[in-house]
């Protein structure tokens, strides 16, 4: 019982981190048909800048906001300088964003040095609760809560605001949105920034969870995030949450019971989806 609850919480926490990364990717792909392999770079930048800010100020909540701000700025610059020139060309997108990913991680090493750095949760998020015989690690619950807050905030924006409506319509038919007099390029810039910001948030949340940060930390998670985008359906925001939870839970349980298979299972999930429902499990469901 105790083990199961722990695996559950673990899986959900990991799922949330993957979701925060995948949410931006799926909207960026769905809306503008852009493959962004630099997304993991925003993740690492969020971790480094947030941990640095936390070290300087001792304020973890402010550090979260700071990391998200850094994500916004990086997102804006990336869209303007890197993505804009390669719209409509997937090969160029893959090459230039992969290259930019390397630049982002090398820059981290230039600023903060090549070695991995320690990262700790603040006092109030350290330790655990004891409920019956079950030990629940506070920080993991914190990740889940933050992930859910992010999900519901963006879900609300997508469903209830005009901008959200435009984003959803744009995923379905971008040309028509333009033909209705809407400057979709501006909307895309915004989505790109928010996506980068969520990735940065994810990176900072992961840091105390894994205890260390390093420049390439975004790679593994970025791969999981791409798997999630495929499973959830390109452009489906809710789909990315559900698929991320699926991948997080399966990873957590498999790692415990059949650890050799834990990555393979996610790959298998993706392959099954690609064979039987190539548009993703939740395509078009918003």
């Amino acid at each position, binding site marked *: 019982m105790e083990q199961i609850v722990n695996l559950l919480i673990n899986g959900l926490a990991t799922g949330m981190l993957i979701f925060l990364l995948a949410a931006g990717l799926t909207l960026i792909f769905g809306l503008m048909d852009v493959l962004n392999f630099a997304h993991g770079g925003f993740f690492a930048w969020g971790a480094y800048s947030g941990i640095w800010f936390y070290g300087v100020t001792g304020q973890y909540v402010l550090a979260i906001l700071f990391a998200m701000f850094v994500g916004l700025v990086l997102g804006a610059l990336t869209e303007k300088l890197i993505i804009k020139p390669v719209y409509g060309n997937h090969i160029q997108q893959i090459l230039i964003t992969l290259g930019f990913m390397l630049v982002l991680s090398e820059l981290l090493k230039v600023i903060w040095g090549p070695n991995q750095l320690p990262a700790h949760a603040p006092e109030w998020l350290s330790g655990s609760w004891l409920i019956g015989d079950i030990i629940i690690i506070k920080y993991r619950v914190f990740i889940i809560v933050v992930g859910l807050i992010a999900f519901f905030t963006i879900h609300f924006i997508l469903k209830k605001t005009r901008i959200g409506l435009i984003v959803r319509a744009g995923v379905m*038919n971008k040309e028509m949105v*333009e033909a*209705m007099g809407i400057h979709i390029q501006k909307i895309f810039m915004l989505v790109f920034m928010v996506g980068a910001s969520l990735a940065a948030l994810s990176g900072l949340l992961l840091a105390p969870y894994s205890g260390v940060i390093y420049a390439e930390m975004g790679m593994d998670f970025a791969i999981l995030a791409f798997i999630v985008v495929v499973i959830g359906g390109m452009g489906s925001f809710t789909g990315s949450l559900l698929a991320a939870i699926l991948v997080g839970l399966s990873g957590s349980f498999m790692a415990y019971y059949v650890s050799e298979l834990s990555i393979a299972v996610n790959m298998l999930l993706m392959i099954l989806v690609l064979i039987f429902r190539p548009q993703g499990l939740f395509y078009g*469901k918003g």
Partner: protein
Amino acid sequence: MEVLLKTENLETFIGQYHILQGVTFEAIRGEVTVLLGRNGAGKTTTLRTILGLSPPSRGKVFFKQKEIQELPTYKTANLGIGYVPEDQGIFPYLTVEEHFKIATKGKGDKVNERIETTLALFPDLKQFWRKQAGVLSGGQKQMLAIARAYINYNELLMIDEPSKGLAPIVVEKVMETLERMKGETTIILVEQNYLMAEYLGDRFYIIDDGKTVLSGEMKELKEHEEWRKKYLGIS
């Protein structure tokens, strides 16, 4: 007679294909201008070129005497040009209400009033207000697509084959609706259904192989069976 929109020798490439090779026509304010031509003649491409969705490589587009062929699509649309594409361009997972919301700019009484007027013209849509547009029938989708273009006080509507794929009785309904819009807005209508074109049109242009080859008042085309035979393959 005021010329609302005019094109001069439009030439458009799609990939390496030279699709439009000289399209010249005028739409006069308050009239229905019909673009006719066989399948693949370049009618849809003409509308897309005007909107900047397939920008021209040569030639000019004037809207209210201003050159607009260099403008990005959203700016052209915001000049007051509404578009109903051939495939209707419905957002399948948005509700009818959301289609109206995204189409109307601004807020307040003026918008609500316009929504009312639009619904009065398209009463069937009220029934499906909260339904996802993807589940509507072909005719209902067409009505929604036209309503979405109509709602913004656009001075010009460009409507691409509104009768396409619809049962005759539904075509009649679409025709009645367009007839009621006539006069209030200027319309450029692409139509293969000759009877509909003849009924609604004031003026016609025939596009053949990417060029405008013949034009005149609709009643002239009505009198010249041999033109219809030659360019449209109908009698």
